[in-house]
């Protein structure tokens, strides 16, 4: 029998944003994954920073929408959660390499422990939050070639 992993969707999250992250959160209102891109080096970066981590300059940063599909780089099954997540263990936290070459840490839903492995193809799962933004998560991309 497949070992169940909790989807953590019942956990109430109130997230305080840094002002330099706001374009990301604005994008999530329309379920768009918008991350930082350095126009000088042509590389993406995540998490958001006030400057390009490649050039050190603010002016080199722009925000671009990306697909949010990727492959699991690593994962951990949390058996002892943080205070907010106490009682919903076990749940999965994955680090996913997005197609644009950055790793993104998030929860994984709609997945069993048996299915979860490094290299698993995943796609976005958008979890609505009370403030109108969405929390970006992953789910298995079973249709992927």
């Amino acid at each position, binding site marked *: 029998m497949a070992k169940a992993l909790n989807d953590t969707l019942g956990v109430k*999250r109130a*997230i305080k944003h840094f002002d330099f992250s706001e374009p990301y959160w604005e994008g999530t209102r329309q379920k768009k994954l918008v991350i930082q891109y350095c126009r000088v080096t042509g590389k993406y970066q995540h998490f958001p920073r006030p400057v390009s*981590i490649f050039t050190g300059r603010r002016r080199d940063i722009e925000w671009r929408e990306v697909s949010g599909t990727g492959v699991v780089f690593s994962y*951990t*099954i949390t058996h*002892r959660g943080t205070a907010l997540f106490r009682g919903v263990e076990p749940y999965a*936290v994955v*680090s996913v390499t997005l197609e644009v070459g950055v790793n993104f840490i998030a929860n994984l839903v709609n997945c069993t422990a048996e299915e979860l492995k490094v290299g698993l193809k995943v796609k976005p799962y958008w979890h609505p939050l009370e403030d109108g933004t969405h*929390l970006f*998560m992953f789910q298995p991309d079973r249709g992927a070639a």
Partner: protein
Amino acid sequence: MSLRDNAIVAYAETKVMEKSDRDVWVLSGEILEELLDKTGIDKSEIDGLVMAGLTGTGAANPFWAQTTADVLGLEVGFCEQVHVGGCSAAGCVARAAAAIDYGMCEVAFLLFADTHVLEDRTDHSHSYRREWTDPYGLMGPPGAFGLLSRRYEAQYGLDYRMLGKLAVTQRNHALLNENACEKLRVPITIDDYLSSRMIAEPIRLLDCVMRADGAAGLIMMSRRRAKEKGLAKNIIPIGYAERTNFKGGENLVDVTRSGHEICGQKALGAAGIGIEDVASFHPYDDFIIAIMLQLEAFGFCKPGEGVQFIRDHDFSYNGDLPLNTGGGQISAGQAACSSHNLVEAVRQLMGEAGKRQVKNTRNALVTGIGWINYGRNWGSSAALVLVPE
């Protein structure tokens, strides 16, 4: 003047406590008293105070080092708090030596005192955690090391029994260390390690360090001054390097590699020894796998060969590569600003480790690991090579 013109002339250490029954400044006073008694120096000779920034109790006080100087009645020309997380203890040795070289002080008191179980004022809210890991319930360091371990396993394979071997070796050392936290001075087996409950799978309970309270300290001065004062058992730092934010300007890195690759080469190069010459190894241990990753990064073995290296070597105090002979932090308790492994190395080189004394005291390699960054391994790496005078 250079690093190796300086000497550690004395160490002091309290017993590690599950939770302190005394204030952090009482512990600091005990350390000061013991160091003065051991060295015979007068309090007025101390003109440098160097404290580790890795403190829970002092975390919210921006004047922590100055306040501590006031509480202890110290007038100093160099008052410093070193903020490289778990590299701070080794980092304090390098900075004290630099300050002595530069003439900012002549006799430095290095103080590692913390009661972060009794009173923790740590605040991580202004960090990536609040937006990028807290909303996903990633549990701080155990969660980060869970991700790191699975990635290592996917790249190289991982025999958890060999991590268990390291856990057992360190525990056996804690059994021989009266200053180790009593709660941890219970024998364990590899099976106990494997069957300990999962925290952030594959990280088990017996992979994790346990926070504890306690204090330690060192006195440093120039070798010349130590000689003038007739201090006989001196330990010389002959190589030090640290690296913060390894590959921090890249967006995707191999998380099994760390800044220890760089600072290991630099520190050993400055010391003029090869990795095969290391007589005892005192790696920072917040999680057992961090020890294995350091064996690889420092070049004891190649990347991906850590498990085989552990299988082939005996890390006990009387083995071929003595490792964390005081129990490490994982079996002695994460106390005293994570200075435990440094103080143990000094004690070993002074020949004062009693029942767990290593035979080869030609040198010791001490390391640091500090802070947890986003989706990688750790933020700072440090390496310090010590030799007896």
